[in-house]
């Protein structure tokens, strides 16, 4: 009221009255107006108010303002204070929640205006209100909707946060089981689908890790096998080298033996040839002896003949002496003596003849034996020549063996190189397999941090000691083989076979 008065003070009263009336009309048309006593008793209200509250004038006039207030609020201290403030003339304007007829809730944008009398004291309260129930209720609905949405969002966020926390702890079984609506449902489904997909992927990774570890184990095992075989090969190579050493020594001995045999055969040949000369000389000497014996035999024959003739002469002399009778006795004695001499000569000649005959037969036998010896010596010479040829062949064979041994030595060297390369490769492979194993174990450990609810798929943790890189097992054998290959092959080539 003060407002109206102050605004219209400079104008004419009529004009101001008319103006005030039109303003009042405008207010009365657009706003719900109700007037109260200072104690809250309803004086009157306009049609807008009735329309808003659903009451008629009769139903509210004389009644207290509290009929429009929630009963719980009406008995509160705030409500009493509210009215005390109005009685003190304090203006109050805000949104108020009121109860319309039938308990219907209604919201009013209202101002409670204490009307100040001439005495400067309020004597009544005019309330100007606009029904904002629809907007307010819409706002309230919207607010409720927002709260509900917020709640739902919170639940979703909580559920998701819980699941995500579990997920962050590696629990891939952390599905969102709560019932979500609308878009959240899609979110949940997508989340669950994502987590399932991840779980599947991790299960697959877990399985693959198992396979990987098996593969790594197999590689490590194969590498170990290869290492052992390489070691075995190196050992075999060593044995081969040793055998080669022995063969080389044997061939060398054979060559030396062949050389000695050759010189011995040459000596034997010379001896045999010299013996042949001796035999020829012996044969000649025997021939001379034979000739002498024949001459002696002839002489003996002459002597024997002479003795024979002498004997005959003596016999004739004896016969003559016997015929002469007594006169021939002395002659007979002489004849007898001559006969005795002739007979002794004959006997001596006979003995010599026997001896010469025996000597001749012995000489003949000697000649025969010496001839046989000469024949045997000729045979020996030819045999020795054959032996010499055979020994030359043996020496040739030894040379060929030496050539072959050189080739074998070079092959052993190549094998040695290959074995060394293999050994190096095996070492690398073992190290790689070990690294692979460690990586696979690490992968398994990482994968095992995830709980997928699939116990069978969990990869076991690897024992790092089990697949330690193999120590280089062939290095020692290699060193031996290398030492032999250098000493044996080079030495054999350079020194041992020059003489061939």
């Amino acid at each position, binding site marked *: 009221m003060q407002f109206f008065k102050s605004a219209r003070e400079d104008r004419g009263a009529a004009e101001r009255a008319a103006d005030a009336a039109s303003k009042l009309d405008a207010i009365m048309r657009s706003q719900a107006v109700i007037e109260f006593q200072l104690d809250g008793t309803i004086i009157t209200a306009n049609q807008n108010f009735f329309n808003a509250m659903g009451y008629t004038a009769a139903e509210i006039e004389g009644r207290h303002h509290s009929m429009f207030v929630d009963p719980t609020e009406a008995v509160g201290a705030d409500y009493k204070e509210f009215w005390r403030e109005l009685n003190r003339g304090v203006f109050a304007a805000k949104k108020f929640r009121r109860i319309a007829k039938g308990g219907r809730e209604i919201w009013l944008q209202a101002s409670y205006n204490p009307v100040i009398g001439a005495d400067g004291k309020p004597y009544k309260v005019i309330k100007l209100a606009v029904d904002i129930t629809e907007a307010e209720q819409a706002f309230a609905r919207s607010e409720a909707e927002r709260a509900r949405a917020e709640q739902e969002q919170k639940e979703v966020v909580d559920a998701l946060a819980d699941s995500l926390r579990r997920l962050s702890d590696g629990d891939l079984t952390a599905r969102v089981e709560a019932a979500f609506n609308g878009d959240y449902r899609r979110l949940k489904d997508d989340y669950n689908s994502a987590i399932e997909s991840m779980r599947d992927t991790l299960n697959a990774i877990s399985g693959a890790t198992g396979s990987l570890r098996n593969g790594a184990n197999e590689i490590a095992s194969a590498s170990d096998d290869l290492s052992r075989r390489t070691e075995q090969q190196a050992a075999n190579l060593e044995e081969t080298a040793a055998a080669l050493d022995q063969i080389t020594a044997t061939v060398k001995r054979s060559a030396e033996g062949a050389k000695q045999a050759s010189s011995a055969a040459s000596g034997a040949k010379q001896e045999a040839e010299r013996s042949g000369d001796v035999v020829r000389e012996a044969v000649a000497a025997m021939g001379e002896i034979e000739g002498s014996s024949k001459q002696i035999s002839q002489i003996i024959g002459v002597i024997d*003949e002479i003795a*024979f*003739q002498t*004997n*005959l002469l003596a*016999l*004739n002399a*004896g*016969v003559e002496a*016997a*015929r002469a009778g007594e006169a021939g006795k002395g002659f*007979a004695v002489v004849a*007898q003596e001559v006969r005795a001499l002739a007979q002794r000569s004959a006997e001596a000649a006979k003995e010599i003849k026997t001896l010469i005959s025996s000597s001749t037969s012995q000489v003949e036998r000697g000649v025969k034996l010496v001839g046989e010896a000469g024949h045997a010596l000729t045979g020996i010479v030819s045999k020795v020549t054959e032996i010499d040829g055979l020994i030359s062949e043996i020496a040739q064979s030894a040379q060929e063996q030496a050539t072959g041994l050189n080739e074998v030595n070079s092959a052993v060297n190549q094998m040695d190189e290959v074995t060394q390369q293999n050994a190096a490769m095996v070492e690398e492979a073992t190290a790689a397999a070990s690294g692979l194993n460690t990586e696979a174990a690490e992968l398994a450990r990482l994968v095992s941090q995830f709980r997928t609810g699939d116990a069978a798929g969990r990869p076991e943790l690897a024992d790092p000691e089990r697949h330690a890189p193999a120590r280089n097992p062939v290095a020692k054998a290699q060193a031996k083989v290398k030492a032999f290959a250098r000493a044996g092959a080079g030495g054999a080539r350079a020194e041992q076979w020059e003489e061939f």
Partner: protein
Amino acid sequence: MQENETAGGGTLELISFEIAGQEFCIDIRAVREIRGWTAATPLPHTPRYILGVINLRGAIMPVLDLRDRLDLGHTEASSRHVIMVVQDGERIAGLLVDAVQDTFVVDEALMQPPPAVESSTGETFVDAILPREGGLLSRLVVANLLPVDTRVAA
């Protein structure tokens, strides 16, 4: 024999010789000479024991193979065989023997007569046997050894 007995003295001088490993002897006074083998000229139609004839200082003399004559085989003569030239009265002949052994004197009483055995011929070839250390020595009868017709030749 008759001559031996007439000579008397109680001793005999004999000459021994060998034929086919056997020793025989004859009276040394029947021997004219002893000589080495000389090839004889064969005579046709003569007994086999007559080897032929030889020239003895101008006289043609038959040579007998005494071995054959004694029916002991046939002698293959060589330079070492000996011909004993013997004489029986007018007859003279050469006896081929293997070898002449010895001349010796023996007591006549030691001579023993041969046993009376049947002979293939009518004549006696051995008239006495002298036992000696080495065996029995048969004395041959020179007159019976010589062929009958040699008398004419001589």
